[in-house]
């Protein structure tokens, strides 16, 4: 009996992995990840402008969210998700390699910054690079509203 269930489960898993991701799901998934990053970074960006008190734990949490998000995001831009309710530029698919490299850079920089940022001085020195990584990608691959 259990063998039957296991085989059925295996077949289901294979079918599920082969089935194309629905475009709306991919768009929703990447927007959720990007929003999580943005929500975490927003208060940290305020700290950088001295509009909020420095909070090391919040900075590190934001960097972890960013690194983890940047690692997940490449999977959420399948070929069928070019159009729809999305600000994703068609250039993402035309220059996929460069686009993905920017996520790799962001993930690596966020992890390095999380390790390197220990106080307000190292925060002021290291965090702008993370925002620059965000901007580098938005400039070329995010459509303007």
């Amino acid at each position, binding site marked *: 009996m259990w063998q039957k269930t296991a085989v059925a489960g295996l077949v289901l898993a294979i079918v599920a992995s082969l089935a194309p991701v629905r475009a709306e799901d991919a768009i929703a998934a990447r927007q959720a990840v990007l929003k999580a990053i943005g929500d975490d*970074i927003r208060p940290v*960006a305020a700290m950088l402008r001295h509009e909020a008190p420095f909070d090391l734990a919040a900075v590190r949490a934001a960097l972890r969210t960013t690194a983890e998000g940047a690692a997940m995001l490449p999977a959420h831009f399948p070929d069928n998700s070019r159009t729809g309710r999305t600000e994703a530029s068609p250039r993402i698919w035309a220059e996929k390699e460069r686009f993905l490299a920017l996520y790799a850079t962001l993930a690596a920089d966020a992890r390095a910054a999380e390790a390197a940022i220990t106080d307000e001085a190292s925060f002021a020195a290291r965090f*702008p690079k993370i925002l*620059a990584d965000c901007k580098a990608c*938005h400039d070329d691959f995010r459509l303007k509203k």
Partner: protein
Amino acid sequence: MTETTSSSTAKVLAWDLPTRLFKWALVVAIAVAWASDKIGGGNPAVHVTNGRIVLVLVVFRLLWGLVGGSTARFTSFVASPRTSIAYALALLRNREGHYLGHNPLGGWMVVVLLGLAAAMALTGLFNADVDRMIVEGPLARTVSDATVTLAHKLHHKIFDVLMICIVLHVAAVVFHAVVKKERLVPAMVTGEKPAAAYVDAARATPGAIGLASACLVAAVAIVWLGIRAAGG
């Protein structure tokens, strides 16, 4: 007028020191504006401060255009449309008059470039990224998202126009150097041109350095206090 030993022709003053310093400072500021936006995702702090410096330079030039050296004054080089067209037609026939300061077309290019630099700096004051997290002009907080979006669009469109005008400007300078054998870049560096029968004036009268300093202080005050008064 003492003659330099290496040169056989006499030199006369064409552009005074403050005008030349302003000109090259604006070139540097525009290069920094581009680099601080584009290179490696940019440096927002540098970009925003540089924008203020562009604004200071433009305000300085407007003041210097009223009280500065003879060839820096707007009244000396902003020509009427009739004069400008006549000059352009003469240029095509290779019969144009030679100017110590800006020729009529060059004068209009100065006005256009100053206007575009000002427009870039002014729209930049209200510009920000969509999330208002990465880069924000000093007055972006004082306006609605719709205004920021408009400022963003204008900032980018005006940049394209500015690039076209810079290309035209450089092309005209190259044209004068290659075709007309009139080297404007050395003149804008040293301030001197060979003495000749110029249409506008035989030699320029420089503006006073003290007055230029006062114009610069006034420009800094106008920009900083102006932004503060506007809520930035």
